């Protein structure tokens, strides 16, 4: 398994934290792409093969909910696994995101939480 990952967050610090966490988690990363909002993410997804996208919710231009809606509506992106990484605390909104096919990691997160969620979403047993 070699992963192409897209990290979408308007905070450059949070993107760096997530990427460092992914690397510390021992996940086999091939390419890691970054986007500062949903619109940038869609542009990247149109031109790069991505296995997994980690997506913040509150972002300018196009938020995470809109991005997930667009990705799920595009058959060419059906293979992209989606994980929302957010401070969202409302079970109502979290369940709505899950109903759209996204998993959820709550901020602040631990490397173990990121690793286990990524492996579960990709259907890979933890070693």
């Amino acid at each position, binding site marked *: 398994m070699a992963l192409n990952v897209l990290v979408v967050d*308007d*905070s*450059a*610090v*949070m993107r*760096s*934290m997530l990427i*460092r966490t992914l690397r510390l988690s021992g996940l086999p990363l091939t390419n890691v792409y970054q986007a500062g909002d949903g619109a940038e993410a869609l542009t990247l997804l149109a031109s790069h093969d991505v296995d997994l996208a980690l997506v913040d919710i*509150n972002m*300018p231009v196009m938020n995470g909910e809109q991005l997930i809606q667009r990705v799920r509506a595009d058959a060419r992106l059906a293979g992209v696994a989606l994980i929302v990484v*957010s*401070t*969202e*605390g*409302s*079970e*109502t*909104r979290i369940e709505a995101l899950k109903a759209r096919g996204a998993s959820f990691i709550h*901020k*602040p*997160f*631990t490397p173990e939480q990121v690793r286990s969620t990524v492996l579960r979403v990709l259907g890979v047993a933890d070693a």
Partner: protein
Amino acid sequence: MPESLTAPLADAASETFESLAYCFAEPAPPSAVPGAGVDGVVAVAFEGEARGGVVLQLSGGVLSAMAGNMLGLEEPASPADQRDALGEAANVICGNVLPRVAGVAAVFALGVPQHFPTWQAAIETIGSPDAHIALEVEGGRADVALVMRPAA
């Protein structure tokens, strides 16, 4: 100030410093919000089943340590990254305190972090605190206020 707000605010703030930034936090002795040695002040407003905001001020060098930890740096983080880290910390505190005080069924929309030159300027914009806590963090101090009003 009501314990129903201060206790969850202290818990959310402590957990954020420890989990997000690997900074140990413990309650600070009660005193006035520092006006000198301030690293930065930021607020995250929210609206939904209630409206208000979280104001966060770091002083005494906490911000540099926190941003460095978040980025895994040995050297000090850049001013832009420190500003970004401050906003993200306030965002995480806000997102984590709201379900504790309003319940997990409540839905809120959080605004983008707004930076202010002083604590007073933030309070004048966001509102008078309904809860305020102070924490000792990395040899410095964090002041966190929660403003919570009925939805308009």
